């Protein structure tokens, strides 16, 4: 069984196709981010995006536009 770091690395850097060219993390307000947890979040995110269950957000600034 792969650990989450190995699983995330395999998803992001497959031997063929779909390679990641850069990845970075924002750990807002977290002083105790551990590597396994971060890797697990990457895996969960990749699973949700590939399954189509992640929400594609097309309007981040909607709150700036007053409702009419």
């Amino acid at each position, binding site marked *: 069984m792969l650990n989450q770091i190995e699983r995330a690395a395999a998803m992001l850097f497959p031997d063929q196709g779909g390679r990641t060219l850069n990845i*970075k*993390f924002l750990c*807002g307000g977290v002083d105790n981010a551990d590597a396994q947890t971060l890797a697990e979040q990457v895996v969960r995110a990749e699973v*949700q995006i590939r399954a189509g269950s992640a929400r594609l957000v097309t309007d981040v600034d909607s709150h700036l536009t007053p409702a009419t």
Partner: protein
Amino acid sequence: MQFAELYSYAAGLPKPPVGFDFLRRLIGARHPEIGRVDVYEVEYPTPTRQAHFRLGERDRTSPYSDEFSIAEIIYCHALKADARELRYALTKEMMHIFDAPEAVVDTREKFEALLREIQNRPLPADASTMMQSELDTRWMAAIILCPKNFRDQYVADYKAQKIASFDIAEIFDIPEWVAPFVMDDYYDVAFTRLVGTP
């Protein structure tokens, strides 16, 4: 496209705030290597305020797709509880499209090393360029959301305590905790380093 070019569009707006969607559309239209910037909201069992940036090759359906990459910013749904926090976080992550070649994480080995660095929080002298890019993007986001021509109009009143951080947060639509360092004199140092001499 360099950071300074993207900044020039933000500074050229009639007034703040600078929209995240405005910036990402510009990147998609003007950056020769970035086709578009996608934002995904995902769910974690334990809500966090975390996000990550991924530049990659997910889409390969277009005959022209070899010409550009897709930038993705993926955030935990809990971040949207505060719209300003979300905007700043997404903008900061988007600034990683300007990472220097030595700062990019493009192999399994670098990825695993970066995870260990985030976990271990090394002393500044031991931090890799991959880790140092986090500070660069913190300032890039602050500068592009608070362009100097607009920000400078409020510095005197802020220093004289005629206006407070919450006023700055309101004007620029940024988290309140960002205002003190945006209004500090170090802004000019960071500006010169990232954008150039005013």
